[in-house]
């Protein structure tokens, strides 16, 4: 397009200007999503399984670190996704979930070592692993739909990190909820399948980032 057309573009854009509703602060919107997910998840967990076994296991330091790190991964990844969805916010937000994520994987890995790197769970080699995979992948779907619905309001100009962080956030949220339904130490296979489920969710989010986020 020649330079003279820039004036025409400006005139067209100004002529078509409509008032817009300003987007609320990214942090506020992130906390809103986390609060809704926390409330719905809390009700479901209280009705279906209760807190007894979870609290019993939470008294063990390694399990407590693993659970807190999983929850922190979810919280920080979701906050980072909302922050990066808006132009001009520091790209350094992307590293926010790195430490909690490493702590989560580290604590889970330590659980495997404590198990003597056994491949056997309570029910054979695969044990509960396939259920865990299905749980993380399945629970991530409704969580992701809600999150992407909120994120697409910003029409992110750089959708890749937003989609990656958002899907990490939902997968970590699902993995945290799994702790209430799967209150045992993980085996190597469990951990591998948990990570595969998280990876799959993140991969799908990255591949479908443009339609999901209404990005160009």
């Amino acid at each position, binding site marked *: 397009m020649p330079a003279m057309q820039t004036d025409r573009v400006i005139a067209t*854009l100004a002529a*078509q200007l409509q008032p817009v509703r*300003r987007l609320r602060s990214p942090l506020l919107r992130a906390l809103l999503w986390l609060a809704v997910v926390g409330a719905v998840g809390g009700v479901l967990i209280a009705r279906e399984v209760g807190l007894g076994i979870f609290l019993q296991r939470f008294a063990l330091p390694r399990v407590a670190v693993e659970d807190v790190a999983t929850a922190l991964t979810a919280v920080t990844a979701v906050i980072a996704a909302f922050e990066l969805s808006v132009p*001009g*916010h520091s790209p350094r937000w992307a590293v926010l979930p790195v430490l909690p994520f490493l702590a989560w994987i580290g604590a889970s890995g330590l659980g495997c070592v404590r198990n003597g790197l056994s491949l056997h769970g309570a029910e054979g080699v695969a044990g509960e692993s396939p259920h865990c995979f299905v749980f993380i992948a399945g629970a991530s779907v409704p969580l992701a739909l809600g999150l992407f619905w909120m994120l697409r309001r910003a029409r992110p100009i750089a959708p890749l990190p937003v989609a990656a962080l958002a899907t990490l956030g939902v997968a970590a949220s699902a993995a945290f909820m799994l702790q209430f339904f799967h209150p045992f130490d993980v085996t190597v296979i469990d951990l591998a399948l948990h990570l595969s489920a998280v990876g799959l969710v993140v991969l799908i989010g990255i591949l479908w980032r443009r339609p999901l986020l209404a990005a160009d």
Partner: protein
Amino acid sequence: MRAAQSGDRAAYERLLREISPLIRALVRRHCSNRADIEEMVQDTLLTLHRVRHTYDPGRPFCPWLAAIAWRRSIDALRRRIRVSKYETPEQGVYETFSDAAANSDLEGVRSAEEVEDLLRLLPARQREALQSLKLKEMTLAEASVASGQSVAALKVNTHRALKTLRGLLEGRKR
């Protein structure tokens, strides 16, 4: 920008005119070709228009604008590298129907209905790009505002639409 978010057209037009030189200076860091620079400036303005609701008046305006200009420049450069790597310019792709040589490819099409049938076979975004730019003769900026597609997306979709149509026509000839 705050006035523009409330729908003040005069303030918005004044703002866009005032920031155009700044955007031009920002994209010049990534590109030296004058035509490409102007295209990046216009793409930045279109993106700014689309995401104007994300500007927070409590924060400085320039980092917000610079992030948009930087992203659009990077996207344009990546696109150019990708295109030059995998595609070669196809002579005649942008021929118009009034061009005799271009019309020779349409010998098999006997009526406007047949063209419409072919258009229906295109993916929605390609059809929308082709109709806006070639049939309704909109400018890229007008088509972008009307369709919600970026300038770059419109170009790519028009190119692909013409390529697909060419394939469909060749298929019919056989």
